[in-house]
């Protein structure tokens, strides 16, 4: 029941819990990056809702704002904002992810003129100076929330929600381990879980995840695969890959393990310094962070080993320069280390792409001798 509820939430933008949250007078803000300090927003009764494409392949209006040379996930999200699907949001936090997202937020601000848009600057390096800078940026975000939504965000409340996030992260790791050796869930279930997490208040998500984990499934597959690369919320695409027999048992993407696997827990230190460290350190999983290639490669390798996968699929949307370049290098390095690797370049949610992708996945499984 809980797993089907999670799939239902993942398939809906304004879900029933969001509606209830809003009916109680609370705000919901949209963002598009895992550098968003969730506990700080929730401490002010502001729900951080991560923008996603929700499988929307029609970008006809968005294409007149952005161009066809922009990432199709961004264009898909922009289309949903433009057509009113995200009208339940009370504003946006323009978290500094990649340039495609920055352009998307520029167009959102221009076309929809939301009452609240705050720019959260995120450094591209992790060192003492940038951590201090980012802690200051998080404080500025807190003040912006307080000013716009008339709430008070206390440090005690941030700590309380940080501890809840720690519990959720721990539970997510347990959930992932149920997919490793003898998989009990499909990768499409895991993506749905991640999408639901990004769309729900934490006190709703935790018990849902807990009970979904009890609903172990019987899984048929030919090969176990780790999915890496650019942000991927396409449940249908993962389902199609799995129909070919390539079971996704782990992801290092930011709609997967990358969002929580290496997250540090609250250690009692200054709350803003802690949040800066927690989110910036974790962001090393993203190709937008400079000088952290080795970190990302080792993350993929260690998760591939732990999940005992037969191979790795590195995917990115066309025109995603960050992951396009990174995936080319990763493929060479992982292959050198004996890990079969397939690079998939795709367009977001394109059904015309499915046949092409399935051919490559099928050949990849055959290559792995499965």
């Amino acid at each position, binding site marked *: 029941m809980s797993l089907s509820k999670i799939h239902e939430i993942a398939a809906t933008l304004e879900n029933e819990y969001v509606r209830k949250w809003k009916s109680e007078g609370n705000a919901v803000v949209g963002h598009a990056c895992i550098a968003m300090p969730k506990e700080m927003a929730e401490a002010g009764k502001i729900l951080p809702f991560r923008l996603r494409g929700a499988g929307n392949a029609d970008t006809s209006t968005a294409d007149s704002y952005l161009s066809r040379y922009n990432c199709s996930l961004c264009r898909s999200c922009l289309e949903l904002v433009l057509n009113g699907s995200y009208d339940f949001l009370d504003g946006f936090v323009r978290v500094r992810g990649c340039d495609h997202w920055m352009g998307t937020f520029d167009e959102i601000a221009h076309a929809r003129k939301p009452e609240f848009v705050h720019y959260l600057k995120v450094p591209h390096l992790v060192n003492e100076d940038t951590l201090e800078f980012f802690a200051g940026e998080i404080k500025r975000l807190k003040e912006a929330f307080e000013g716009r939504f008339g709430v008070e965000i206390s440090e005690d409340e941030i700590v309380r929600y940080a501890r809840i996030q720690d519990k959720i992260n721990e539970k997510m790791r347990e959930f992932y381990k149920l997919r490793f050796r003898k998989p009990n869930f499909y990768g499409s279930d895991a993506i749905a879980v991640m999408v639901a997490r990004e769309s729900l208040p934490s006190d709703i998500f935790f018990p849902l995840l807990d009970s979904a984990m009890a609903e172990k499934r019987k899984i048929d597959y030919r090969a176990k695969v780790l999915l890496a690369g650019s942000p991927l919320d396409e449940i249908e695409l993962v389902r199609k890959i799995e129909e070919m027999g390539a079971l996704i048992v782990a992801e290092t993407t930011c709609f997967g393990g990358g969002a929580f696997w290496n997250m540090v827990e609250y250690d009692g230190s200054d709350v803003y310094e802690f949040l800066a460290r927690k989110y910036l350190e974790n962001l090393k999983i993203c190709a937008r962070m400079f000088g952290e290639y080795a970190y990302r490669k080792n993350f993929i390798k260690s998760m591939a080993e732990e999940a005992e996968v037969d191979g790795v699929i590195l995917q990115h949307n*066309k025109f995603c320069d960050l992951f396009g370049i990174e995936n080319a290098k990763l493929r060479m390095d992982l292959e050198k280390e004996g890990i079969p690797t397939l690079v998939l370049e795709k367009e977001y949610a394109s059904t015309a792409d499915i*046949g092409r992708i399935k*051919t490559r996945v099928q050949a990849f499984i*055959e290559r792995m001798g499965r």
Partner: protein
Amino acid sequence: MLFGGTDVGSLTAQAVVLEDGKIAGYRNIRVLPNPVESAKRVMGELLEELGLRQDEVVIFSTGYGREKLVEVGFAREHVSEISCHGRGAFWLNPAIRTIIDIGGQDAKVIRVDGEGNLVNFVMNDKCAAGTGRFLEIQAKALGLTLDELGEMTFRSANPVVITARCSIYAETEVLHYMQRGVAKEDIAAGVNRSMAERIYYLARRVGVEREVTLTGGVAKNRGVKQELEKILNVKFVDLGVDPQIVGALGAAIFAMEKYGGE
């Protein structure tokens, strides 16, 4: 026992039947709008020619519509065209380790091991560069047939340089050269060379191990073939069959390997 394979591409469809471990016959047709109908038509024509019934042959499918052919009960199983080209080429010549297959819409470089197993592959991504379609576009711009385009390499002393990787921009360059009055032979030879360069970049991603063969429709373009041999510094092994049937042959071989013991 009899085993068959069908391979439906973007422009042509092939069928092969094996009898007692030998090629009993093959057929190659232009595709119909529906890939399932293409496979049924090409295999139907071949079976009729061989005087066989469909239920006498264990058929494996590859290429477009391969899954659907299994769903509708026409084929017993389906295998990717990548594995099929690899297995087909290796079966024809066990010294083969690299297969370069260039079809109408995709180009693949396939590596097999000493037992014919697929060890690596690379395909063109969302781009027509390096596919038969690239040649079609340029041939049309030059007012040549595909066969004529291939032969131009042997009549040109000064092939032009086509710098654009994109098929559309390359066509612009071709038109530019034509407007400047450059000889058609030199432009066409430049097109064949630039096609070979595109495949070279693809091949570098998985490496090229000898022996190497060229399959697919573009293998019939002598100009591209020669340029590719030059740039890769290899001599392609002639498999002794129509290079377009290798995928269908591979499917038939997989059927034979799996059900031959029954």
